[in-house]
């Protein structure tokens, strides 16, 4: 489980590197970076105990803008790398992040398995319904009918519903936020990191350059609905699944689902197994004894 000591002195700035973001002015990802640094400051683990992994995309540049041990890997592969890190060293606080394309398209095959394995990892998707870095193609969360450079006559596909998808996978912590509600987003990310197990946060992080005009921060401010105010009970998985159906139509922010009885995480099981079997260790210089014929 993640350490929860909070040295009160930690400042968000400690988590910001001096690399200048390449993001366009006004990009939603600036807000995500701020919120994350604030949440980390609240938690208080020093940067060198954090491993922050991403794929490729505008959003996936984020680890480089923090002082954590960062890994800006290749497109779609943040989660396998993050899992390898966490198994290899469960003491680390492991965060994965990336775009909607990175996570639900090319990386979509890793998500169900990361979720069912349930390592204590927080996964933040900056969902802007478009491929930002490659300049505006259809993304898996682009709405049906969306006109982009690869769908000039309008997309003919239903979008991925990230919230329903991860609930279908049995994810223990599912939330959605937006930089339009920064305090809310900070709280969600903090709660996700503190959740003992795999936690998923979908952030509606608008692309000002290629994104849809009616899905930008000012719009968010107007339309967002706080789940807590809707009276949603985050312990109710079926209700969460029902609410999730409105993804893309309603902007729900808050915790959709939090497993009230989080199961033991995989990284804890790894430790248990290592401890249980440690007594059987053969000395390395006697390793060939396993090939002796009786």
């Amino acid at each position, binding site marked *: 489980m993640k350490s929860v000591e909070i040295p009160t002195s930690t400042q968000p700035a400690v988590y910001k590197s001096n*690399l200048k973001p390449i993001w366009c002015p006004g990009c939603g990802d600036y807000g995500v970076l701020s919120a994350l640094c604030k949440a980390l400051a609240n938690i208080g683990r*020093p*940067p*060198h*105990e*954090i*491993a922050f*992994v991403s794929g*490729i995309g505008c959003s996936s*540049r984020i*680890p*480089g803008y923090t*002082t*954590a*041990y*960062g*890994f*800006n*890997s*290749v497109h779609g*592969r943040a*989660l*396998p*790398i*993050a*899992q*390898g*890190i*966490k*198994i*290899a*060293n469960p*003491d*680390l606080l492991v965060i994965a992040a990336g775009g909607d394309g990175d996570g639900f398209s090319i990386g979509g*095959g*890793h998500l*169900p*398995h990361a979720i069912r394995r349930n390592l204590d990892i927080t996964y933040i998707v900056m969902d802007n319904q478009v491929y930002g870095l490659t300049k505006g193609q259809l993304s898996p969360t682009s709405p049906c009918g969306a006109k982009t450079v690869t769908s000039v006559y309008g997309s003919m596909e239903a979008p991925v519903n990230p919230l329903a998808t991860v609930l279908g996978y049995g994810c223990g912590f599912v939330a959605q936020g937006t930089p339009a509600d920064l305090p809310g987003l900070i709280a969600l990310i903090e709660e996700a990191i503190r959740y003992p197990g795999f936690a998923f946060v979908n952030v509606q992080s608008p692309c000002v350059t290629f994104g849809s005009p009616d899905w930008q921060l000012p719009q968010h401010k107007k339309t967002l609905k706080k789940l807590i105010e809707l009276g949603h009970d985050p312990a109710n998985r079926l209700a969460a699944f029902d609410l999730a159906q409105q993804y893309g139509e309603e902007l729900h922010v808050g915790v959709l689902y939090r497993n009230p009885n989080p199961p033991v995480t995989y990284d804890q099981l*790894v430790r248990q*197994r*290592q401890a*249980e*079997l*440690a007594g*059987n*260790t*053969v000395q*390395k*210089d006697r*390793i*060939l004894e*396993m*090939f*002796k*014929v*009786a």
Partner: protein
Amino acid sequence: MTKSFGSQIRGGESSCRVRLSTSKVLSAGGVLNIAIALNWEDYNKFGAELPIDEETLVIYEAASQTPPDALPLAVKPGEAIAVPIAEIARPFGDKSKNMVVLGLIAGWTGIAREALLHGIEKKLGRKGPAVLEPARQAFFAGESFAREHPLAVDRTLSPAPQRETPLLLGDGNEVCAAAALFAGCQFFGGYPITPSSEIMHLLSREIWKFGGGFLQAEDEIAGIGSAIGASFAGKKAMTATSGPGMSLKTEMIGLATIAELPLVIVNVQRGGPATGIPTKSEQADLLQACFSSHGDAMRPVLAVTSVADTFATTVEAFNIAEHFQTPVVLLSDQEIAQRKEAFEPIDTSRIPVIDRLRPTPEQLDNYHRFAAGADGISPISQPGTPGGNYLASGIEHNEEGAPTQSGVVHERMLQKRFRKFDALQRRRDLIEIEGDLDAPIGVIAWGSVAGVCREAVAIARENGLPVKLLVPRLIYPVIEKVYEEFFASARHGLVVEQSFQGQLYRLLRMYVNVPDGFISLARPGANPLIASQIARKLEQIASKSLQSLYV
């Protein structure tokens, strides 16, 4: 011992080859000394895998009603004996035909009864006397039949000399996994695939005991991805696969190259391309091992040459990976990986284990992850280390790890990433050369075919040919000097390999001037290469090369 199965998942035909020798066994063997056919149809399903020649003793089921001079074989064997195996076995139950056959062999060759009986007891003892006793009786019945029907040519073997230290028994996959643990591997991430899965099986049991972690991933990309993650986190890591999985890992291998993360990737080769022939051996993934990534990427490629050698070469793969901070491809092949072999105990105390270079406290004061010394190697910090924080990435980056688009930095970083391997040019110990260094004829072989060629060269030498043999354990980068010296005397010879294209031959040509007298002897997989045939080819070459001296 090499097993082979028909395409049936369970049931159906299967064959098993055993090769026994008092000297070191170097390959699965070519032509059979003794062939046993329980029925001809199934025997012939294995086709060229079970070759027979004019000296083979063929034992076959008398119930097949085949006259010894009308066997369904392409070659007339040395001797053929019909034995009513099923009839002899009948009193001892369904499964005792194999025991009868063991008895026959023991009877005709004199192979140690005691050992065989001990083996039977070990295998069946715990099933109780109701199983064990009939098996023993079937064995005895086979033995008596043999005693009562002596062979035309005597095939009795003299008893093996008593050994001081007993041999060890294992297959290449198990030895590879054990070597990984010896080398300090603490993470395995992979996805099952024939014929590499046993590496994963063993590690899934044992790695925890060494404080390590294991992940059966959802696919090969995630398998290598998790291993890259573990390596980033500071642990020695490994993944293992076969051709199709190797193809899928291509992008991630490039990532490990540019992010300079140590990693061992085992490819147990099978018949290709695509799904190909999953259960048969081939050596056709060499060029892929060297060149599959996009961009200018370089990674060392090693190949094991026998079950026993798999130990040292696997440890070497880890040492190179850790020292040079690089992915390493370790090539094995089905023939070695799944062959049970008896081998001499290995003195592990003489095998060094190398760890990656860590930054000093001074270096951590102002840490530049990719700042390299003259040797191109830069100390690597691991998450959890204060001050060592850095950004690993697949994007081209500068010394600090910051992304860059600069052509100048790109060139500098490429130089760094290639320069570090210059040191491998000095690792002459990773190429084995046998025989007279001045011999005018040479053989080059790798992987399981190296064993076949060791035998072929031995035959050729017995026939008086001046032949030397070169077997690279480090195949790529090509250690140019060693080959140049080899070719200095040997202007004629063979590059022998089990592929259609002759991949090692082509690879060598890229970097060294291979003499025109060197011919590529390349045969595709599934069927074994045969030492005697290679020896014959060497004789042809010898007579031609001698001729050329007089031209």
